[in-house]
């Protein structure tokens, strides 16, 4: 039963990340996603320090804000200060991550809830420790599962309601601007959702490995299809596939669960990449053969 809940929780993380990741990739902002996921760290530590618990709303808000702040700072560096784009991303997230580390060292001394390891790969194995039990004996799953579900609803709802907006933002920002759509509003909305998702996923998969969930499945989906809706579906499929297979591998080899999930995800990417290359070279050969 515990296995089931762990896989279910991680699957929802994977789906949330995959959906948003598709839009990030289409906007050529994969590394901005990477930056956000690192940059939520100081927000998480500060909010945790003041609220004293992991599940608080304050933590959610604080950390999400620090993620959005990161994208804002990147914009400021690259547009106003004329630092070149990739350097701006690198500078911003390393700074915020360093601040987070210093805060952990000063505020969190001897605190078991937020330590360095959990920053890296989360506590997915411990997800089941924090249970929600109603009527004294009815166990309806870990708390993280419900946090993820709520976040999932927010992400899913936002994408359905704002589908047109996100689509325009991803494919033709200039056109969207010219017909009077406030693109920067949509941009920061997307960034806010990414930050929210990484924050919520923090205790499950950690701040660093969440990048694997955010980028790899959508990248694999991009190899398979050109169509946006199909891309979203494929990304979710690849994400959940990696979660299930990764969990089983991790249990079998007795290694880090999150690490195994992302490793499997990367392997799936390599596999799909290889298959697409083979098919393309085959079809190219058959075209040449037909012409001869």
């Amino acid at each position, binding site marked *: 039963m515990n296995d089931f809940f762990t896989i279910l929780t991680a699957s929802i993380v994977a789906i949330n990340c995959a959906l948003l990741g598709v839009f990030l990739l289409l906007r050529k902002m*994969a590394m901005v996603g990477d930056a956000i996921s690192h940059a939520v760290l100081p927000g998480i530590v500060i909010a945790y320090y003041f609220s004293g618990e992991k599940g608080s709303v304050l933590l959610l808000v604080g950390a999400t804000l620090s993620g959005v702040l990161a994208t804002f700072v990147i914009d400021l560096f690259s547009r106003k200060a004329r630092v070149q784009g990739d350097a701006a991303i690198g500078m911003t997230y390393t700074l915020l*991550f360093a601040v987070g580390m210093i805060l952990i060292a000063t505020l969190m001394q001897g605190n078991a809830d937020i330590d360095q390891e959990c920053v890296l790969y989360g506590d997915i194995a411990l997800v089941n420790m924090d249970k929600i039990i109603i009527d004294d004996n009815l166990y309806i799953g870990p708390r993280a599962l419900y946090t993820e579900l709520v976040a999932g609803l927010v992400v899913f709802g936002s994408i359905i309601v704002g589908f047109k907006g996100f689509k325009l933002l991803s494919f033709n920002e200039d056109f969207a601007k010219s017909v009077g759509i406030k693109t920067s509003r949509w941009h920061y909305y997307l960034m806010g959702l990414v930050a929210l998702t990484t924050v919520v996923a923090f205790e499950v998969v950690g701040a660093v490995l969440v990048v*694997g969930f955010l980028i*790899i499945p959508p990248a694999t989906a*991009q*190899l398979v299809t050109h169509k946006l809706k199909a891309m979203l579906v494929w990304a979710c499929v690849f994400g959940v596939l990696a979660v299930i297979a990764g969990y089983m591998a991790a249990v079998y080899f007795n290694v880090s669960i999150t690490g195994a999930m992302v490793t499997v995800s990367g392997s799936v990417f390599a596999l799909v990449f290889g298959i697409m290359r083979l098919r393309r070279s085959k079809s190219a050969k058959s075209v040449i053969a037909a012409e001869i």
Partner: protein
Amino acid sequence: MHSFTDFFSFSNANVVYVVLGMICINASSALVGTFAFLRKRSLIGDAVAHSLLPGICFGYLVAGEKNPVLLLAGAFLTGWISIFLVDYIVRHSRLKQDTAIGVVLSSFFALGVVLLTYIQKTGSGNHAGLDHFLFGQAAAITRDEVSLFVVILVIILTVVVVFYRQLVLLSFNPEYAATIGLPVRLFEFVLTSLTVLAIAAGIQALGVILISALIITPAAAARLWTHNLKWLMLLAVVISIFCGVTGAYISYARTAMPTGPWVVVTLSLITLGSICFAPRRGFVSRYYIRRKNSRKITDENILKTIFKLPGFQNQDTELTFTRVNLTEIRPFDTKELHRGIDRLIRRGLIQKSGDDFVMTTSGRKESARIVKLHRLWEQYLLRRTRIDTDHVHSGAEAIEHIITPEIEAELERELGIKGIPEDDY
């Protein structure tokens, strides 16, 4: 203050190792970082840093212990593979470079985490300290490692000095480098290898995530101060070393403080300072330049408008006017007009008399000079380009403020005009 003298007297051997180690690491990474920055490949360093982790674990599994050379070899190998994979993915699919970086980075890092937990759980031998590679532990730098870092720094320095011209050409114009027969792929290989080497050296002190800052930030900060590549590299190295030693000192003075994050924070603070205060490219100086320019434009527009006042051509009588006279000819923002006239009074071009203003002799001269530049440019556009008479005015309106006396003389010579051209469009 006690800890300060303690630290900088270098009486503690540990302090010496840490400081020497930081100097070597920071100098190496700032050097290769400059080239990465110029080639707009800063984030590649990020991919490499994360990808070193599985290599380090392989190195440990092969050696069965923490042998620095084998760990470095493993790290070098996987770091190299990661750069190759990023390039391969970009070349053979529709995926963008940053997507490819993200995919490679997280896959390799995850593999590293898996191997790390595998090593920890099988629990054979002495694996303590392997997790230093994740977050960095500068205080743990040993004597052997310092000598290794020195060797790496010497290698990087030698290559950069010997192949300086080739590397510069490759960074600024790889296509041209290829056409003149430079083995571009070879030098790309060399540069990539140096990058991997520098990151591999620094990773134990800074950790996989923060080491990217050592590659990216020094060059970005130094770039704000200079256009000269040699100065850029020197400055990047100096900034980086300064921050390295500062970070080491802070963690020495306050035991709980980690070194790596403080190095990164001081680096970022210097960069932020540069962004604000660097000459010419900084926020502050750009603001002043912009303000100076807009003031100059307002002043010259006022002078030009005075030229059009009915009494201007009559040199014998005094030319008096009010602000309203000016706004009737050309719409001015009231506030700007007030300030502009105040400035002109201070420059002695206008005098105040009661509620009116009087033009001085030097004011008349300056006014005529601007109008002359304007009309000269109009004539130039008319004669040398195919621009119509009703379009030359707007071009001249912009250029008149930046024509230097040399260009003025050139224009006069070219057009054969002496004095102010008659026609005004």
